[in-house]
């Protein structure tokens, strides 16, 4: 299950939801799979949460033994709306019509494009560390890059790049140049250092934020304030216990496909986002 979910990324960070520890619980009963995921804060962007939920469902549905998938976001301001919308195969723009003026297609595109550049930056930096020159790197074809992946320890970064090279960078046959702009234009050797600097900056901003997310998520699981009594005054009708108390559950570090929890969905954490 973790392998199936691994390619699903947080679009803004281009890191796997599994590596980011977002997966909180996986339940399997026959062909039915139920996944709970939790983001680093109660306030993480609803549109990205929606994208991740959709992508998780799609990734798990692709397994041939799976007959039914439910994906549930927990501990989030928009959990109720997102979970209901995802379960109904609705669209983000429909569910959040009063709060957004566009669909998620443009947003997905923006961040996929950034991910392409970020992944390219990772491959090029790895090649430079392995002793490749700028000219050598720019001359590499997709076929040669596939060969390098097979015979070096760069398979991970190269495969991630090639996954998106089908979508961006123009023609993607084995004899085509591997590294091009997203629009498919060649990169001039003279402009290469500037180009590299630009795309490295994009990648690092996302990486730094990824680190922040991991730290927030760990803190959220570890040191969250316990004050059930203090919350009672105004929140009693919507919420029985504060988030920290409600879901001390299993973290993804020790989730396995055999973890079938009997814990019912935590109704207190969902459906209260209005």
């Amino acid at each position, binding site marked *: 299950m973790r392998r199936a979910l691994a390619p699903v990324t947080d679009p*803004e*960070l281009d890191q796997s939801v599994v590596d980011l520890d977002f997966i909180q619980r996986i339940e399997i009963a026959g062909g039915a799979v139920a996944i709970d995921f939790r983001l*680093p*804060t*109660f*306030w*993480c*962007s*609803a*549109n990205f949460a929606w994208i991740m939920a959709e992508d998780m469902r799609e990734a798990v549905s692709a397994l041939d033994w799976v007959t039914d998938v439910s994906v549930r976001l927990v501990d989030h*301001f928009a959990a109720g709306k997102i979970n209901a919308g995802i379960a109904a195969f609705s669209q983000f723009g429909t569910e*959040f019509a*009063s*709060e*957004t*003026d*566009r669909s998620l297609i443009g*947003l997905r595109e923006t961040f996929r494009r950034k991910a392409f550049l970020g992944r390219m930056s990772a491959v090029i930096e790895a090649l430079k560390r392995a002793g490749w020159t700028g000219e050598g790197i720019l001359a590499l074809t997709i076929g040669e890059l596939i060969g390098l992946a097979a015979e070096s320890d760069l398979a991970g970064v190269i495969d991630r790049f090639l996954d998106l090279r089908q979508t961006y960078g123009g023609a993607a046959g084995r004899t085509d140049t591997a590294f091009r702009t997203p629009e498919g234009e060649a990169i001039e050797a003279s402009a290469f250092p500037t180009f590299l*600097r*630009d795309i490295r*900056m*994009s990648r*690092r*901003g*996302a*990486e*730094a*934020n990824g*680190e*922040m997310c991991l*730290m*927030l998520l*760990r*803190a*959220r699981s*570890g*040191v*969250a*304030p316990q*004050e059930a009594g*203090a*919350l009672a*005054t*105004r*929140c009693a009708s*919507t*919420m029985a216990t*504060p*988030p*920290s108390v409600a879901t001390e559950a299993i973290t993804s570090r020790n989730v396995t496909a055999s973890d079938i929890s009997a814990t019912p969905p935590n109704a207190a954490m969902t459906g*209260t986002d209005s």
Partner: protein
Amino acid sequence: MYLTNDGKKIFVIDGHVHLWDARPENRLNRYGFTFIETFWNAHNGLSPPDELRSWEWMQYQGPEQAMKDLFEDGNCDMAIVLPTYLREFYVNGFNTTEQNAALKEAAPEKVILCGRFDPREGEAGLDQLEADHARWKFRSVKLYTAEWRGESKGYSLKDDFVGAYLEKCRALGIDIVHVHKGPTIHPLNADAFDVRDVDHVATAFPDLKFVVDHCGLPRIDDFCWIASQEPNVYGGLAIVNSFIHARPRYFASMLADLLFFVGQDRLIFGSDYAIYTPGWLVDRFMRFEFDDETAKEAGTELTLDIKAKIVGLNAARLYGIQVPAGCHVAPPVERVRVS
């Protein structure tokens, strides 16, 4: 005032400070809890273990405690105190100009009080801005484009109702606009933390100066493009500089990019008090060095001049504050605009 090991006096302005009240009795709903919970987790995630504070402190500081944290233990000569109203989450607001004014009263010469407006408030909001300005005489405002207001879950500086407010600022002599553009906390409508709308107003109002708090993190790249083109855009380093302990490599690399693209004269230190405290942040920053590779990327070593600019001189220049005699000074540098 920060004193270096070799006895140089460094003038310090904390460019990003709040005093807030998130105590249970001030919370309007569960969002009031989750909001401060997120800050608490950020405090725990990035602070050194011996700088961790209590949950009670996180919820409420008050002027006396803030005086101690900022001006006694915090190395700060001055602090820019920014409001974040959040009236949808807190009975009396989370961190209003009125609350901040208590600190100003306690230390009038040390505190730069900042106003606010929400351009969705129409004519009444313009009148309120005028009344607030008459009362507190601030020359800067803080905007929080992702703030909820009724059905609206945020606005963009490109929205057509923003211009009238910036015109009003002009008329009142408010020429510095802090804009929160940072991580998490609910961007929804067309992504309210998207930093590119700053480009729009920075071009339309070249006489105003825009401080992009948190440098757009995680869209530091977008921020850098804008700031490199617009001379009236500044980078507020709050959160970015807080990586210095827990993730120093990321801090170094973000700062290198900012120095390279934005330059050493338009970056402003901010503790983001009370998520973090300036005491340890200023001290670690003043002792921070770039390795060779980072210095190459930044186009410069992290010199004493640059550090002094970031922790105080840049904010002093922006706000027209006289740096006390005897403090280390460094003039702005000519730089070739990155295109």
